[in-house]
C-alpha cells in the first residue's frame, strides 16, 4: 500500500527538518515523563505494599509491647529481623475487652547466624495454632493440616535462604532439628522472610538458651473487632486498660513510613513541577521559533485554501508527535528506573509486594497524558499566533 500524503506525513517531514531541536524538546518531555512515572511508581508501590500487607494480615488491631510499634512495623512491612516481647497475659486481657471478637498471638524469635549448622539470620514466628487466624489461611493453601511439633514451614522468600524446595529437609533452629515441610505462597508481607513453627516448640527452644525469650512471653497480638464496634474505640480501650501495650489500628500500620513518604513526595513534586515548567518553556520557545520561521509557509498554505483549523492541526501533529515520542521514552525510562532502583532504595527493597501490570499501565497513561499536556500547553500560545496569521501579510513579512 502506497503512503498517502497527509497532514501527518507533512508534520513528520517538518519535525525531521529541525531534527536536533525536535530531539531536544522530546528529550525534555522524556525527562519530565520519566520523573513522573518514577515518582508515582515509587509512592504507589509503598502505599500498595502497606495496603497489601495490612489486608493479608486480616487483623483490625495489632497489639505490641509499649514502644515496640516501630519494630513491629519493621518486621511486618520491611522484612527486618527484630524481636520484642511482652507478657503473654496481655493476650487474655485483650480478649476480655468489649468489642474484641478474636485474638491470636505470635512470638518472634531471631535465629543466630553464628550458630553451627543453623539457618541464616531470620525471624522465626511461633504461633498459637488454636486461636490463629493469620497464618492458618496461608497454611491451608499449602499444607492442609496443622503443623506438628518439630515441623516448620517457611515463608516464600526464606525458602531461597535455606534451600527449601520440593524436597523436605531438616534444619537446625535454636539447636533443635526442625523438619521443613513446605514453602508458603508469597503473601506480600514482611513475614515472607520468616519461618513458621507452632508455639508448642517454644519450651524446647528456651531450653537451648539461644532465643533470649522468657517463659510466657509473646511478641504481638492480632485482634479482630466484633461487627458493629469501632476499631478506634477498641484500640483506645486496649491502651487504657493495658499500660504495657500499644494498639495499632490496621489503617495506621505503616503511618511512620507514609509520613516519611510525604517528605519524599514533596521533593518529587517539586522536581516534577520544575521539570514541567522547563519542558513547557522549551515547547513555547521551540514553537515560537517555528512560528517565526514558517510564517511565510503558513501564508502560502492559507492562500491555497488552508483553514485556520488545518494550520492548527498540522502544528498540533508536530507537537503531539514530539510529545508522544518523548513521553513513551520517558515511560520506558521511568518504569525501568523504578524497577532498577527497587534494589537501591531500602524502603522499596524491604517492602513487600510489587505494582501490578494494570497499575503500571495506569501510571504509564498518566505519564503520557502529563507529558503531552505540558508540551501542548507550552506550544499553545505560538499555535494561536500561527493560526491568526493573515495570508498575504505572512507571505510578505518573511
Amino acid at each position, binding site marked *: 500500500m*502506497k503512503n*498517502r*500524503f*497527509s*497532514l*501527518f506525513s*507533512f508534520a513528520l*517531514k*517538518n519535525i*525531521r*527538518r529541525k531534527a536536533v531541536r525536535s530531539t531536544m524538546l522530546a528529550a525534555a518531555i522524556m525527562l519530565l515523563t520519566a520523573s513522573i512515572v518514577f515518582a508515582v511508581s515509587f509512592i504507589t508501590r509503598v502505599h500498595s505494599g502497606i495496603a497489601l500487607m495490612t489486608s493479608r494480615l486480616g487483623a483490625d488491631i495489632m497489639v505490641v509491647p509499649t514502644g515496640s510499634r516501630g519494630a513491629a512495623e519493621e518486621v511486618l512491612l520491611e522484612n527486618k529481623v527484630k524481636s520484642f516481647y511482652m507478657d503473654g497475659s496481655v493476650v487474655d486481657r485483650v480478649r476480655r475487652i468489649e468489642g474484641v471478637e478474636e485474638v491470636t498471638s505470635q512470638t518472634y524469635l531471631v535465629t543466630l547466624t553464628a550458630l553451627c549448622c543453623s539457618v541464616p539470620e531470620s525471624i522465626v514466628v511461633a504461633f498459637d495454632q488454636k486461636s490463629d487466624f493469620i497464618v492458618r489461611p496461608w497454611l491451608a493453601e499449602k499444607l492442609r493440616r496443622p503443623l506438628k511439633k518439630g515441623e516448620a514451614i517457611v515463608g516464600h522468600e526464606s525458602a531461597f535462604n535455606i534451600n527449601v524446595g520440593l524436597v523436605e529437609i531438616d534444619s537446625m533452629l535454636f539447636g533443635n532439628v526442625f523438619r521443613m515441610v513446605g514453602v508458603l505462597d508469597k503473601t506480600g508481607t514482611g513475614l515472607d522472610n520468616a519461618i513458621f513453627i507452632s508455639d508448642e516448640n517454644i519450651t524446647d527452644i528456651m531450653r537451648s538458651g539461644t532465643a533470649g525469650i522468657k517463659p510466657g512471653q509473646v511478641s504481638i497480638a492480632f485482634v479482630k473487632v466484633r461487627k458493629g464496634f469501632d476499631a478506634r474505640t477498641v484500640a483506645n480501650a486496649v491502651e487504657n486498660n493495658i499500660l504495657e501495650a500499644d494498639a495499632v489500628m490496621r489503617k495506621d500500620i505503616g503511618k511512620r513510613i507514609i509520613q516519611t513518604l510525604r517528605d519524599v513526595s514533596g521533593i518529587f513534586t517539586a522536581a516534577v513541577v520544575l521539570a514541567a515548567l522547563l519542558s513547557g518553556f522549551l515547547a513555547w520557545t521551540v514553537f515560537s521559533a517555528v512560528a517565526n520561521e514558517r510564517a511565510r*509557509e503558513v501564508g*502560502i*498554505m*492559507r*492562500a*491555497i*485554501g*488552508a*483553514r*485556520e*483549523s*488545518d494550520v492548527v*492541526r*498540522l502544528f498540533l501533529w508536530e507537537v503531539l508527535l514530539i510529545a508522544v515520542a518523548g513521553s513513551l521514552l520517558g515511560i520506558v525510562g521511568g518504569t525501568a528506573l523504578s524497577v532498577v532502583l527497587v534494589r537501591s532504595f531500602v524502603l522499596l527493597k524491604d517492602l513487600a509486594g510489587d505494582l501490578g501490570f494494570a497499575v503500571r499501565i495506569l501510571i504509564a497513561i498518566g505519564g503520557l497524558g502529563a507529558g503531552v499536556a505540558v508540551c501542548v500547553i507550552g506550544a499553545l500560545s505560538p499555535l494561536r499566533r500561527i493560526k491568526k496569521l493573515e*495570508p*498575504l501579510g505572512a*507571505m510578505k513579512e518573511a
Partner: protein
Amino acid sequence: MALLVLEGITKVYEAAGETIRAVGGVSLTVEKGEFISIVGHSGSGKTTLLSIIGGLVRPTSGTILCKGADIGTLDSDGLAQYRAERIGFMFQFASLLPVLTAKENLMLPLLFQRGDGSAKEDGGRKAEELLRRVGLSDKINAYPAQLSGGQQRRVAIARAFMNEPEIILADEPTGDLDEGTEEDMMQFFQAMNREQGVTFIMVTHNRDLARRASRQFSMTNGVHVEHARP
C-alpha cells in the same frame, strides 16, 4: 450569471501616517472562460486587486460577487474554502514548501479541500499528470532545493490547477522563465482555458503576453482601464 462581479472595489492602506490608495474604485464583470490580462507598473495596484479577488485581502469598500455570492460576507474559514474550491493562485515569488517534494507540493491544496487532512487517492496521479504537462515528469520526487528557479515556478503553476479551480489568479506567472518555457506555459494556460473553461486573470509586465488575453486592462495608481479587444 457572471462568474465574478467587482463593484467599486477600493483598498486604502495607512502606512507611516500616510494614506495609500492601492485600488481605487474598480468595477469589473468577468464571465466564465474569459482570459483577462492586467498590465501596469510596479505599485499600480495589480497584485492588491488579485489578492482582493482571491480573498486574501478585504477591500476597504465595494463588493465582490462570485456566482452571485458576496465573498465580503465570508469569515476566515469561508474565505479559505472559497480559495480551496474556486481559486488557483500563481504567486510572483517562489511559493513552494521546502520540505515537500514537487508532487507533494501539488497535492497540498487537496489536503485542505477534503477537510480531513488527507489527499484523495487519485491526487498522486493527477499531480504527476500536471507535472508532466509543465515538462517536469522527471522531477516528481525532487525537492524545491533540487530544482532551478524556473522549474520551481513551473511546479507552482501546476499546483494552481490541482484543485480544479474555476478562476486562476496569476501574478507574473512566467517572470522567471526563459522565452521558450514562457511560451510553453502560455500555451498550457490557453489550453486549460480552452479545454476546461478555466477563467484566467493574469497580471504581467509583458505586453506581448497581455495581448494574447481575450480582454486587456491596464492599471495606473489603482485605477483600471479596459483596452479595446484585439
